[in-house]
């Protein structure tokens, strides 16, 4: 009996798989699928992919990016779409895993026939997708993949011409904060504490240490911790013993909050510096502990009218939630992409064709779209050219300090 039940279960699953297979094959037969130039897009809509980790450990970043992107696209659709065509979002989850990301992306291309992709959220997953997207010339823009390797292959010295991003790259932030420490804070000694398995944290830390040494800050302590650790007292006790002027903690905000709190407990008195992962850190540590810390960001909450409008729209769409930097960057990624779609539509091309994709890439390369955080233009590595915002934490608030 049980064996029969188990077999039935397996059969149902197998059928479901083939069922999906049957269904999924339809789009490739219908016009608007990939590599079928010259045929009109179905129903006058433009399909774009939205890929990121909306479940799993890093889901909070993925969900924020997706919410931001959807906010803008829904707004565009409500206003009549692009050239009268509605933008259809194909949203998939990759759990932050490269394998899942590649599968989901291939599915978007083969079965859903997307024209462009917003994604992915984490650098590792994005790089995995890039290796699939580059050969087929799929326009791609990431809101939050900060690793240098996302748009540039250092081995062959080639830029992935189809890949863009609206966030800073890791080395940029690390260098910025080292210079900020030396030039603004007059720091002579520094310590770093970072998550060892996290490419983002390691990338920022490496750049910071390199720049610090070049400009004459001595790095007196180099401490790592591993994913899931909540106790940093041992490492911080080491740092406290060296009494550095600044402590660079380029991790995600939840860990940073905990690190700052525990650092004050074990007697670390230096100024804390962080990267853009710090946004929202004030919810995770007390005002007194965070007082006087700085981080660099792409987004300053409540700074301009556009930002205030964005915050109000976001709150209205998502149960009164306050958007973080990831949501703002998700929104901006959608802005840049939609702007490029408009350019491609203006040329009278058909969505889904290779010419259309090339036109979207071309338009993104020369973009001057204005997003929430900045006006965008891209450098030769397809990274955005924009200044870092330095945020200072005073009285438990993340306050715009200066552009740097």
């Amino acid at each position, binding site marked *: 009996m049980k064996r029969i039940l188990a077999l039935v279960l397996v059969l149902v699953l197998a059928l479901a798989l083939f069922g999906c297979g049957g269904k999924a094959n339809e789009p490739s037969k219908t016009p608007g699928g990939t590599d079928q130039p010259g045929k009109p897009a179905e129903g006058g809509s433009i399909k774009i992919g939205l890929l990121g980790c909306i*479940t*799993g*450990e*890093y*889901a*909070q970043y993925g*969900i924020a990016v997706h919410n931001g992107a959807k906010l803008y696209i829904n707004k565009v659709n409500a206003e009549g779409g692009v050239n009268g065509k509605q933008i259809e979002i194909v949203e998939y989850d990759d759990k932050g895993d490269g394998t899942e990301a590649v599968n989901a992306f291939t599915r978007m291309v083969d079965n859903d026939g997307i024209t462009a992709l917003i994604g992915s959220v984490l650098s590792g997953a994005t790089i995995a997708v890039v290796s699939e997207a580059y050969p087929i010339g799929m326009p791609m823009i990431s809101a939050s993949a900060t690793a240098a390797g996302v748009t540039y292959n250092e081995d062959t010295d080639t830029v992935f011409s189809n890949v863009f991003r609206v966030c800073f790259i890791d080395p940029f932030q690390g260098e910025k904060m080292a210079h900020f420490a030396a030039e603004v804070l007059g720091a002579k000694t520094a310590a770093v504490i970072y998550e*060892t398995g996290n490419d983002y944290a390691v990338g920022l830390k490496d750049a910071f240490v390199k720049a610090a040494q070049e400009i004459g800050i001595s790095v007196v302590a*180099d*401490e*790592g*911790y*591993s*994913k*899931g*650790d*909540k*106790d940093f*007292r*041992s*490492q911080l*006790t*080491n740092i*406290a*013993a060296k009494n550095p002027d600044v402590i660079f903690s380029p991790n995600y905000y*939840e860990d940073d*909050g*905990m690190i700052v*709190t525990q650092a004050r*407990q*074990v*007697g670390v008195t230096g100024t804390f510096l962080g990267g853009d992962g710090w946004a929202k850190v004030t*919810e*995770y540590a007390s005002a007194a502990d965070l007082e006087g810390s700085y981080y660099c960001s792409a987004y300053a909450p409540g700074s301009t009218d556009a930002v205030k409008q964005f915050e109000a729209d976001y709150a209205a769409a998502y149960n009164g939630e306050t958007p973080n930097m990831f949501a703002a960057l998700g929104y901006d990624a959608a802005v840049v992409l939609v702007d490029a779609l408009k350019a491609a539509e203006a040329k009278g091309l058909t969505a889904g064709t290779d010419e259309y994709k090339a036109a979207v890439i071309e338009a993104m390369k020369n973009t001057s779209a204005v997003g929430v955080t900045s006006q965008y233009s891209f450098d030769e590595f397809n990274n955005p050219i924009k200044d870092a915002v330095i945020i200072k934490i005073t009285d438990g608030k993340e306050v715009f300090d200066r552009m740097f």
Partner: protein
Amino acid sequence: MSVLSMIVSQLINGLQSGSVYALIALGYSMVYGIIMLLNFAHGDIIMVGAYIVWVTMSVLGLPPAVGIIAAVAGCTLLGVIIEKVAYTPLRKSPRLSLLITAIGVSFFLQNIAQLIIGAGSKTMPAIVSGPNLYIGSVNLSFVAIVTIVVSLISMAILTILVQKTKMGKAMRAVSEDMGTAQLMGISVNKTISFTFAIGSALAGIGAVLYSCAYPQASPTMGSMLGLKAFVAAVLGGIGSIPGAMIGGFAIGILEAFVSAVGLSVWKDGVVFAILILVLLIKPTGIMGREIKEKV
């Protein structure tokens, strides 16, 4: 800071995290001792406990005492429900099937928590607060003292429970030989449920202490914590109550000192390497009993 006070500080760091590991390791060890199951869901019970504290205190705004009671009661109940629903039907199955069920339960709790509460961490309110203690130049935080004291008391109570009460005797009998215990008129089902209840209650206490020391709750917080506690239980000799305590403290102190000597990057690797060395020298863990195999 002098070298001595540095060593003492690190020792206290280690004792603090070690006492939480020890409490959780106890739950692993007790359940293992009685039904030979590596209860992978144990770490996730702590996660649920932490969320209960968060809900009662931050969302409902109730006083800390209510939060603590709710967390311990909630974890106990959850532990028993998991045992009845997922483990009891598999009592006679191969042990590995039970293990996979435990993994399934662990995944389930993590994902359901994420679905209901969201993936981001929630900040916990302060449950206890008090002045820091200074001994010379060594700074002893109030939370650290509370954590260490409460876990020592819980372990003492547990030891009395297992050694002196009738139920404790039944637990020991069932873990020794389930069949014979049943023949002697011990209700095996009741005893196993009771073991789960005690183990989960300890997890509840662990959750509260963990929330005091590291005021964040996230859906995946239990997995790494559970793994470390599991390692601690094995290091101490799985199935042994004093072993779990020693293992927990050993892992905590070991981690602190590996970081202290500047090897923080290699911390996990070194901890596991020492674990392997201990197991190779004494294959049943520090306090484990050598069971001679009958031929």
